[in-house]
């Protein structure tokens, strides 16, 4: 039943990346290959779902996984998976959690056969995740079971095999699988962030003034595995994930004026979407990944308008046509509308226009004194988050597109800007100066669960991907 990890596939990806690197010194360094899919085993049992008592969220315990191979490395992997899985599951707030610090009072299981259900039940656990880790030739095998503690029954289980190099990936996959099967929810544990950072302290080359380089970075959703993507020694900013999570479009000044570039981070290749002396900024992918909308002052009169272009740089089309600033585009999930900022009536506000350019743009933030960087939520939510001026600084606000009701997620601690939705719409990333320098944070769409993601240098303009598509 168990399909083993296509390890050769993983090697092939690595080799390909190296080959491309050698052929064409790219401006990008390849991050690690995408998590190689661990092929799940179909559970034999009929999957049931865990429930709490009296309609309350199920109370879950996630102890460290059990090392079945008696060596230190396996023990470390088992512990890491359990702890990261606890964090991953907790992130979606679908379960109530029995705190980790009381787990020590429960005898540790040594296999699935000796799980002390009665003791977990004493802690009022409804559900219990038990997992094992075993060394195999060339990797590890991880088995996970979710038990109904009252019935002592397995309600869900899967087996994963692959490399032991990054145990966190197993936890992320397990978390997303549990949320999918138990809560019909797309978790975000396997998703990634991208942002721009000056942390390297490098200076732009070729200028007399001292100017700090900004480079594009990626990380896991929880801020782990932060890796640099660009090596432009210039300004690289406003990164946006492609819908398949495998490419990042960004604005780079590496050719002098700003242009739109795409970094295919798992192939270490680069594409130039716009070329030449016309400046182009702030690319936003269409939901199908085929086109990009961006802002450009290319008419040379000081106006900025929106354009749509195919990913390969063909079929350039002007979307807005107004003698003002029209910038910061974001597509609706259906691809039929684009929200953007315009200062056509004074300070910038958010407007919505049909993606085919037909009809007049509609003002949606009439009451804001200054609003920019709209980002349209994924379904099922139909809302737009944006940066709004609220005082000396800015805050993150969200407008419900059906009711036009506005709610505020941050409240004047430093400035708070550039919101970006998680692919399930339940969280946002943004940057804030609340802790000093500009740092990336995530927050639930309810305004709860603020988490700091970056801590080194200045980090801003985050974007949040779907899990990288498998190739």
């Amino acid at each position, binding site marked *: 039943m168990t399909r083993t990890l296509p390890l050769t596939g993983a090697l092939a990806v690595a080799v390909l990346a190296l080959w491309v690197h050698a052929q064409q010194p790219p401006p990008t360094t390849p991050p690690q290959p995408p998590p190689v899919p661990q092929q799940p085993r179909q559970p034999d049992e009929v999957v049931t779902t865990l429930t709490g008592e009296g309609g309350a969220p199920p109370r879950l315990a996630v102890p460290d996984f059990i090392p079945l191979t008696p060596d230190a490395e396996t023990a470390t992997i088992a512990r890491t998976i359990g702890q990261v899985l606890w964090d991953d599951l907790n992130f979606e707030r679908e379960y109530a959690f029995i705190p980790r610090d009381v787990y020590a009072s429960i005898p540790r299981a040594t296999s699935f056969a000796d799980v002390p259900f009665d003791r977990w039940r004493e802690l009022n656990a409804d559900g219990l995740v038990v997992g094992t880790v075993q060394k195999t030739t060339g990797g590890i095998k991880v088995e996970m079971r979710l038990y109904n503690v009252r019935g002592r029954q397995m309600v869900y289980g899967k087996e994963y095999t692959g490399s032991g190099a990054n145990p966190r990936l197993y936890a992320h996959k397990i978390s997303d699988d549990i949320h999918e099967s138990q809560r019909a929810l797309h978790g975000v544990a396997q998703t990634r962030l991208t942002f721009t950072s000056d942390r390297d302290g490098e200076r732009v080359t070729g200028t*007399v003034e001292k100017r700090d380089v900004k480079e594009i970075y990626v990380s896991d959703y929880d801020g782990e595995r932060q890796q640099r993507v660009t090596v432009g020694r210039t300004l690289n900013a406003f990164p946006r994930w492609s819908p398949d999570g495998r490419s990042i479009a960004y604005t780079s000044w590496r050719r*002098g004026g700003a242009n739109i570039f795409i970094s295919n981070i798992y192939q270490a290749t680069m594409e130039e979407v716009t070329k030449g*002396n016309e400046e182009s900024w702030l690319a936003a992918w269409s939901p199908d990944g085929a086109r990009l909308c961006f802002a450009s002052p290319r008419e040379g*009169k*000081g106006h900025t308008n929106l354009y749509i272009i195919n990913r390969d740089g063909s079929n350039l089309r002007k979307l807005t046509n107004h003698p003002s600033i029209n910038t910061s585009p974001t597509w609706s999930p259906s691809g039929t509308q684009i929200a953007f900022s315009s200062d056509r009536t004074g300070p910038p506000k958010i407007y919505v226009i049909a993606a085919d350019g037909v009809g007049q743009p509609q003002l949606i933030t009439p009451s804001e004194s200054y609003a*920019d960087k709209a980002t349209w939520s994924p379904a099922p939510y139909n809302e737009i988050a944006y*940066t709004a001026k609220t005082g000396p600084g800015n805050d993150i606000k969200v407008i419900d597109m059906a009711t036009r009701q506005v709610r505020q997620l941050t409240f004047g601690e430093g400035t708070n800007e550039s919101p970006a939705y998680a692919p399930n719409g339940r969280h946002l990333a943004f940057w804030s100066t609340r802790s000093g320098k500009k740092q990336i944070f995530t927050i639930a769409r309810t305004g709860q669960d603020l988490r700091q993601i970056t801590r080194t240098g200045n980090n801003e303009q985050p974007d949040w991907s779907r899990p990288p598509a498998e190739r």
Partner: protein
Amino acid sequence: MKRTAMVLAASALMATIACHKNKPPVARPMPPPATGSGTGGATRPPAPPEPVREPTVVPPEPVRDDAISSASLDDLNRNSPLKPVFFELDSDELSPVAQKALDDNAALLKRYTTWAVTIEGHCDERGTPEYNLALGERRAVTARAYLVSLGIAADRLRTVSYGKEFPFDPGHAESAFAKNRRAHFVITAK
């Protein structure tokens, strides 16, 4: 209050610039007096009387042709003879001071006809990074259009916006903001 502070800061800035421009003429050493004991002999006619010189008008920022012509691009840009132009908050309008700076820049560009220049538009840290890209562009384009109106060929002047990404002064007060809302000139070819 803020507005007052801004006006004050702007006035202070203008005063600084004005002072700079009204520097007294620099005294220049006179050539040594001609003596008869040079190369010539006694047959040489007496030297003509020294012509009375008009007092030299020293430009506010003395421009020495040879120094400018021989300087590398980096050296030129390090002490650029092209003056930056400053703007009010969220504005791309040219003040009289800004116009004067551009007039001077135009004179230099007419003198050094081979120079190509990139006009960089910059913003202060207020406002979002996204919107400021377009605002910086407006400033660069306004400065460019003014130079073109003075007869500088448009193809010598390229514009680029850096938004608020490269502040000249990293401070967080109006004094820094005033320096950062600027069009900055970079000589790219000579």
